């Protein structure tokens, strides 16, 4: 495996070593190691059923691997509940939009601020003083995200009625609201048209460059991956078959066979 030049001067944010995950005998991920560097955009690609989503689920604590270690910011991570992962700075979006359907765009993104809000029941009940200040401060932050994602016009609309592309954008906004160190994006551009894809790519790049957020994303559109990603890891049937810069991965015979060759 070639080592990309970045590795030397960027700190490792997350590394997985020999991670294996199985469901009742079926191996979803077998013995995979790779790392994510601070500030990079890391893509995870592979054909359907390659274990990409399981990988994200392992990273944010939704699944617990049977074997292997996960090191997050230099510390080995024990079994971790998803909410703890969230608190430690990992956010994500979902393949099938998992928004809070009963809430508005604004509330959905506000929901992403949950961890940043601390005021207790007493102040919440009165909704004055600290609780309100906190609410307003977070609202301001959320408004900046709304501005960033250019969704001001749907601010007060219930998300259930929004077109798919906008829902994905709201979901990204919700994850952004957590101000994560690592943002996991599960097929952020699935089902989008070209224009929406371009917008989304722009947001991802801006997010990465403006806020320095590290991003790990799963994406099918190879063109998008090649444009966005700093480094790419390729999975197939739960195993890692390539890891490196987009160019390197693209030229790997194994990848061409397993992934591009299959065609889909």
């Amino acid at each position, binding site marked *: 495996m070639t080592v990309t030049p970045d590795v030397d001067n960027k700190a490792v944010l997350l590394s997985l070593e020999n991670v294996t995950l199985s469901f009742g005998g079926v191996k979803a991920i077998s013995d995979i190691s790779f790392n994510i560097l601070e500030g990079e955009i890391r893509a995870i690609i592979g054909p359907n059923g390659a274990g990409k989503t399981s990988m994200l689920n392992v990273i944010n604590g939704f699944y617990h691997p049977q074997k292997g270690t996960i090191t997050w910011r230099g510390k080995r991570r024990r079994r971790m509940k998803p909410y703890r992962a969230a608190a430690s700075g990992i956010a994500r979006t979902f393949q099938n939009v998992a928004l809070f359907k009963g809430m508005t765009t*604004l509330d959905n993104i506000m929901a992403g601020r949950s961890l940043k809000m601390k005021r207790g029941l007493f102040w919440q009940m009165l909704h004055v003083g600290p609780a309100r200040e906190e609410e307003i401060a977070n*609202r*301001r932050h959320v*408004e*900046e995200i*709304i*501005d*960033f994602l*250019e969704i*001001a*016009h749907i*601010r007060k609309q219930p998300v259930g009625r929004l077109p798919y592309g906008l829902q994905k954008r709201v979901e990204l906004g919700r994850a952004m609201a957590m101000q994560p160190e690592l943002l996991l994006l599960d097929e952020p551009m699935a089902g989008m048209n070209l224009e929406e894809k371009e917008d989304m790519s722009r947001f991802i790049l*801006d997010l990465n*460059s*403006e806020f320095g957020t590290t991003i790990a994303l799963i994406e099918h559109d190879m063109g998008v991956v090649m444009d966005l990603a700093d480094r790419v890891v390729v999975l197939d049937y739960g195993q890692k078959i390539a890891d490196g810069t987009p160019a390197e991965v693209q030229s790997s015979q194994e990848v061409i066979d397993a992934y591009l060759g299959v065609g889909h």
Partner: protein
Amino acid sequence: MTESLGSLPAYLLRNSHEFADRVAMRHKDLGIWREWNWSEVADEVRRFSIGFAALGLKRGDKVAIVGSNRPKLYWAFPAIQSCEAIPVPVYADSVAEEMQFVLEHAGARFAVCQDQEQVDKLLSIQDRLPDLEAIVYDEPRGMREYDPEKVVAITRVQELGDEIIQRDKDVVQRWSDAVGELKIDDMCVILYTSGTTGRPKGVMLSSRNLIQTSINANAFDNLDHTEETIAYLPLAWVGDHVFSYTQSLVAGYSVCCPESLDTVTVNRREIAPTYFFAPPRVFEGLLTSIMVNMEDAGRVKRWMFHHFIKVANKSGERILNKESVNPFSRLHYKLGDWFVYGPLKNRLGMSKVRVAYTAGEAIGPDIFRFYRSLGINLKQLYGQTEASVYITAQPDGQIDADTVGTPSPEVELRIEDNGEVMYRSPGVFMGYYKNDLATADTKTPDGWVHTGDAGFVDDAGHLRIIDRAKDVGKLNDGGMFPPKYIENKLKFFPNIKEVVAFGDGRDYVSVFINIDLTAVANWAERNNIVYASYQELAGHPEVYQQMEEHVRHVNKDLASEARVASAQIKRFLVLHKELDADDGELTRTLKVRRKFVNERYAELIEALYSDKTEQFVSTEVVFEDGKTGRIDATVKLATVELEPVREELKQAS
């Protein structure tokens, strides 16, 4: 006449004392309306200005302003003007090449941009703009990677100003003094006209032009510091400059900037402006969407809507004009106001509108009356960049859809022999920037300006614009033939899509009519009229009958005006095919190519000036797949009896 101050920044300073706590500007930003009162605005501008000076801005420099309606961009005007430099607003939607021309022509040393998009545009052409030294921007998003020497945030400029003020307390006083010493006759802005042909021309306006015009306009409509208006039209357009900047400064009213162009409607509803301007297409679009929406409403509601709109049609305008209306109608209207007009105005965000203007092109009389009948005081004005907007405007209570009103205060008007409208006023521009030739063409040495429009003043003293002066022709009897005027009148009927009028050098006027397929097909369906093709529908006797009624209607209109009475339509035909850009009959922007039509349908035109009742014609057409074919048709020609012209009118002409 109020004694005017010497400059726009001086008005700002006055407002900061006189209306210190009144809101000067609102901007919906990050979900809420941020407000600045006049003293805050003055402070912002002062810091901006002092900082700008520190960047090297000096007397006579030109500064481009690129972007949409943002408070900071509005503040850039007085900030620049108080340095005796000249702001040059540029249309934000122009492509880089267009911008390049303006910036190059103006020789801008600085540019104030809204965001990354505009900055990028300028940076892409910076090698061709040797004069451009630095770019100042408003929104910091995505700007961190740029060269901080060349690309500076407005906030940074203001900080610079702050630092200077910190170091040197007197600088504030000096700045105020400098503002006080600005000369009223100095140029204060260059507005580039978006010329339809040729290069844009930079209209130089002096402080006096703008201030005097603003004072007059405010007085004309009794606008004072309590007004609210929403700024959503391009900054570089003279209208916005006057409505949202100079008039606001002079009167002290507040200007509200919407969150984005997508949210103008919603933002307008939130603000409910009292003073509102929109071009006719905006009103047209709103009306269409009202009608479309109402089609989806329940039966009862729809019935109610149409019923009350009828009521409004009958008495709404008269009530608005404070004419006498019988109490029953008044009550009926009141009811309508409760059920329909009030809520409708509320939805449109026009509940509080005291004065609304439309201008720029002719507005359909039905559309115009619709809004007025709802109780919205919509008026027309006629203006130009060269006049600092106002040439004529309709005074309250003297409204007619066909006129553009009486001359604005201090405006003198005269009609040339060829029908061209000329004017002279305090708002008349200083000249075109670096284009004396054009200045001389437009402005006479004694201060009269050619509008390029033909028109006439009717009995009531109201100006009517009929066409571009160069397009107006003459009938053989010497009568005036304004083709656009006639065409527009017909085009306001919803079932007429396009009209081509003939008459220059002929005995009488005749027209080609293109029916509007959607509208007519709809009508046909409702009336069980069967047709197989456009051609068949166009030739249907009942369609002809309808068109004849329209023509008669227009003739009646024309007959009532001495100057155009002779231009009544005598013969017409309904074209068997739609005029089509693919066939070269229309431009790509869907304007009729007269010349081409004249040649292509020469047979038909000749037939119109003969006794024939029908004429065979065969035309080559291009189908959608690119193939060509021919359409053969025998087109019926109809003759319309002319309306009698009243004797006194004849004599008058």
